[in-house]
């Protein structure tokens, strides 16, 4: 029970034989991934215990499903899709696979709940009967501000129709004290209820059409997006959504360290009963209640008589606690050693951890195989011991700290340096004591930028913000230009439209104008190479190239106006033919340049200057020299005339 996170699914009741009305099967979709990186680094090495739709750790989930008793009770289908990045993606995929044909419950795997989903579903069905446009019901819990399961980041204001519980407006309230509501709302609604005390349980009862809504709107990532989208289009589409506030029962989702701690405390204090450490649901190694005050342990034979266990404590199997150690509000995993005079408060210590004598820990999550050497102090930032506190320290798997180290600022540590996509370590090495092995954990920055961007090209955006290297973007741009040219050839698109296309690509990938100049010509030269065979001759290439050049005359004129840009164009040609060794072009380069000259794209002076300054002696230069000679002849001709 090192991580008291449990996915629960209420058993579906199959169609009962003695009932005449055929019941619809009870369908639940559980998304196994949270698509949320705020719990890193703990989750780096671990999967949640969940069922059904998964993106990461498919083997772990499969084996968990096979082992769990649920698999014999219900039909569990595990769908693995490693590309899904959000709830939206998952639902789009399900829609694609045509797996959902009835109303269903949408849950996420990090949910802890003991609600009766069946009765919630019945309420959803009744709503659907009275209001044909109702597409979803969100299950909420009444949870006033200041409550511990209210994560500080998720406070929402709901405007509801009081009699029907229909959602009229929804707004996420962060720090601002102001709320904006459309005035129509107040003018039109007969009974308006504004609620700030609702906690989203992340249980959503959806009509069968919900996945298709996600498919239609490819930028929806979360259910919240859907809610906002539907509210925005309410007048056009007329879809409505409702809220169901549950009185009894418990439901909360672990989304960050704050809620991890809150939910864990709730589980220990039995709020989530029957999901508590000593009941069958979560109990595989025989944890039982040892005394009042919610102290749980497998057996106390390795505990010193002089250790002091406070309330809300779980101690795993085969864990030793030495004399003078005091532990309260904490979960200790299996096979741990807690040294003498250690003080542990508000901590989550996972399996196989060693904490040596005289250490003192507060508000810490310690993953597996961590070792804290003597007299390591992790001190709380807040002095109010009664108030619900956030997690200050997170030590990833295998971190070593100490001896004689004191930390008093919140920090996330991992045992290995974080690496970016290029394998370059970017987290700083933190020397934490003589025997220390710890690196600062840096949250990948992509998370924050996502939310504001309109989904359209998020993949490119993410790449952009993740690493400053421009290379992939230019490559992408180059390929896109190639595609544009191919389309232009096939569909005979006008030059103006090609320019428009390239310009919009330029903005999409944030490409500098000189790079555009560089790449447009290269793309044009590249294009015919894609169509001809390896054994083709230069003359074949030329015949292929000519129509494209003609098509692009205006494009070139648009980009190569100034002398400077023309020079860049020539440099790009040289680079393309010589440096990237497209030798087929060498014999015909004269004709190509001639074409450019004759169509007033490239200026004679520029070509000559380029010829004189930038070209090394070789076949290429010889080819160009013919053209330059012709220029000179023509010049002298005209002079003599």
């Amino acid at each position: 029970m090192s991580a008291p996170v449990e996915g629960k699914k209420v058993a579906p009741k199959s169609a009962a034989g003695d009932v005449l009305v055929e019941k619809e099967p009870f369908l639940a979709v559980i998304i196994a991934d949270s698509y949320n990186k705020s719990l890193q680094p703990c989750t780096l090495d671990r999967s949640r215990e969940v069922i059904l739709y998964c993106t990461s750790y498919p083997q772990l989930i499969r084996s968990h499903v096979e082992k769990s008793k649920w698999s014999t009770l219900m039909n569990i289908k595990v769908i693995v899709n490693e590309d899904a990045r959000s709830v939206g993606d998952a639902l789009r995929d399900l829609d694609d696979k045509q797996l959902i044909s009835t109303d269903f419950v949408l849950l996420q795997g990090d949910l802890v709940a003991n609600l009766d989903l069946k009765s919630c579903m019945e309420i959803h069905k009744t709503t659907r009967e009275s209001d044909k446009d109702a597409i979803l019901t969100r299950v909420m819990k009444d949870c006033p501000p200041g409550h511990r399961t209210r994560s500080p980041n998720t406070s929402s204001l709901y405007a509801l129709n009081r009699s029907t519980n229909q959602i009229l407006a929804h707004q996420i309230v962060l720090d601002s004290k102001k709320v904006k509501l459309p005035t129509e709302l107040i003018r039109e609604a007969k009974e308006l209820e504004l609620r700030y005390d609702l906690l989203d349980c992340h249980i959503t009862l959806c009509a069968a059409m919900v996945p298709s809504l996600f498919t239609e709107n490819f930028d929806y990532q979360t259910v919240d997006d859907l809610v906002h989208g539907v509210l925005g289009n309410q007048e056009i589409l007329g879809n409505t959504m409702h809220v169901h506030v549950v009185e009894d029962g418990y439901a909360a989702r672990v989304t960050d360290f704050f809620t991890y701690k809150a939910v864990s405390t709730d589980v220990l204090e039995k709020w989530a009963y029957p999901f508590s450490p000593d009941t069958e649901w979560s109990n595989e190694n025989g944890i039982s209640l040892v005394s009042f005050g919610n102290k749980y342990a497998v057996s106390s034979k390795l505990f010193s008589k002089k250790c002091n266990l406070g309330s809300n404590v779980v101690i795993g199997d085969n864990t030793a606690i030495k004399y003078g150690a005091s532990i309260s509000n904490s979960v200790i995993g299996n096979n741990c050693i807690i040294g003498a005079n250690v003080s542990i408060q508000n901590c989550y210590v996972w399996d196989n951890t060693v904490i040596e004598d005289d250490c003192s820990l507060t508000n810490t999550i310690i993953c597996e195989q961590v070792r804290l050497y003597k007299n390591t102090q992790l001190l709380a930032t807040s002095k109010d011991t009664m108030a619900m506190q956030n997690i200050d320290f997170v030590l990833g798997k295998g971190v070593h700290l100490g001896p004689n180290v004191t930390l008093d600022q919140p920090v996330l540590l991992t045992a290995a340096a974080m690496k970016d996509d290029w394998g370059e370590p970017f987290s700083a090495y933190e020397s934490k004591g003589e025997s220390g092995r710890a690196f600062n954990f840096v949250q990948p920055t992509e998370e924050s930028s996502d939310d504001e961007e309109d989904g359209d090209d998020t993949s490119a955006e993410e790449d952009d913000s993740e690493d400053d290297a421009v290379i992939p973007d230019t490559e992408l741009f180059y390929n896109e230009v190639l595609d544009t040219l191919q389309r232009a050839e096939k569909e005979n698109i006008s030059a103006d439209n090609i320019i428009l296309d390239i310009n919009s690509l330029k903005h999409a990938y944030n490409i500098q104008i000189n790079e555009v100049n560089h790449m447009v010509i290269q793309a044009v030269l590249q294009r015919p190479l894609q169509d001809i065979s390896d054994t083709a001759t230069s003359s074949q290439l030329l015949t292929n190239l000519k129509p494209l050049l003609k098509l692009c005359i205006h494009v070139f004129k648009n980009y190569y106006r100034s002398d400077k840009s023309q020079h860049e164009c020539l440099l790009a040609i040289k680079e393309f033919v010589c440096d990237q060794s497209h030798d087929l072009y060498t014999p015909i380069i004269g004709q190509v340049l001639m074409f450019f000259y004759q169509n007033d794209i490239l200026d004679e002076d520029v070509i000559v200057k380029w010829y004189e300054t930038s070209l090394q002696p070789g076949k290429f230069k010889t080819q160009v020299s013919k053209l330059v000679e012709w220029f000179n002849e023509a010049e002298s001709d005209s002079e003599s005339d």
Partner: protein
Amino acid sequence: MELLASQEDMSQDEALRFLRKMEQSDQLGSFEAAYQTVKYLRQKISDSQWGKAREALDLVKEQSARLLKGQRESSVGNMIRRVMKIIKDEHFSSGKEKTDERDTQESLQKLLLADDDEEEYNQPKENLKESVIDSMCELLSELETSAEIVCANSLEHIQNNEVIMTLGNSRLVEQFFKTAVNKKRKFQVIIVESFPNYRGHELAKALTEADIKTTVVSDAAVFAMMSRCNKVIIGTNSVMADGGLKASSGTHTLALAAKHYSVPLIVLAPMYKLTPQYLSSYDQDKFNQTISPHHVLPYNSGEIINRVSVSCPLYDYVPPDLVSTYATNIGGYAPPYIYRLLADLYHPDDYNLKQELNS
């Protein structure tokens, strides 16, 4: 072969479903749990191939591991013990003549030293399976009639114009009162409401519908009301080996108040509630079970949740000296006699099922 396999799957499925149902609902009751357990074991025993008592016992043990896992209802374990006892009894009785011979010939010394039964159960016996299944059917009908038999004695316990106190809601107690009223006894009932689930209210509703004069009092008023009562009649979760009770929380207070005013405490206990377990001093807290404190302090109370610890224990242990009589389906007994009943119903080797499973 395939057909057989699928049948096997189906019955296992059903068993698990039944177990899950028992776990999910605290309301299912010990009778239903006991009845389903015996029915399930009977099906297992009749479906499987076995010839020797040892094989049948192993089968039951194997199933009991699954049945008992996470099981809070003690009657499941009790019924497993009963079935094991039946198998052992039938084994010996079917070879009656031989056993008698041995009994007369062997000395006390020999009986003590013989590492008897393990070997003995490997002896094949004729018609063992049939007789075991017959006995299990008898057990089932005993279970079915047990409540009825307990209630049949209601007139002996309830006299005219008596005031009777009870706590919470027990279906057996409800039936007991109704039987008495049907036989024209006139009496009054004071019901302790039993915070925080208020099961007492349910009972009050049921009794008033049966025209029984009913008063509901709060848990705190037990002592005040006790002085005007003639009798206390309660149900229980289980009867422990020492004659004590594991009953819903508040019962200990009630029993102490009854003792103080010398009001007799009658416990309605059909025999499937009798368990060979007893409370030892070192696992006081394991004995109990705490559930969600939502009804004590609502979860949405806000910040106070962070600052207080709320607990909601389900059970009380009531020591045997506070109980006057057990009204069972095989007659009325005083607490000191319980050990004798235990020896009749269960084989001493089966008292500790968990230990058996581990070894």
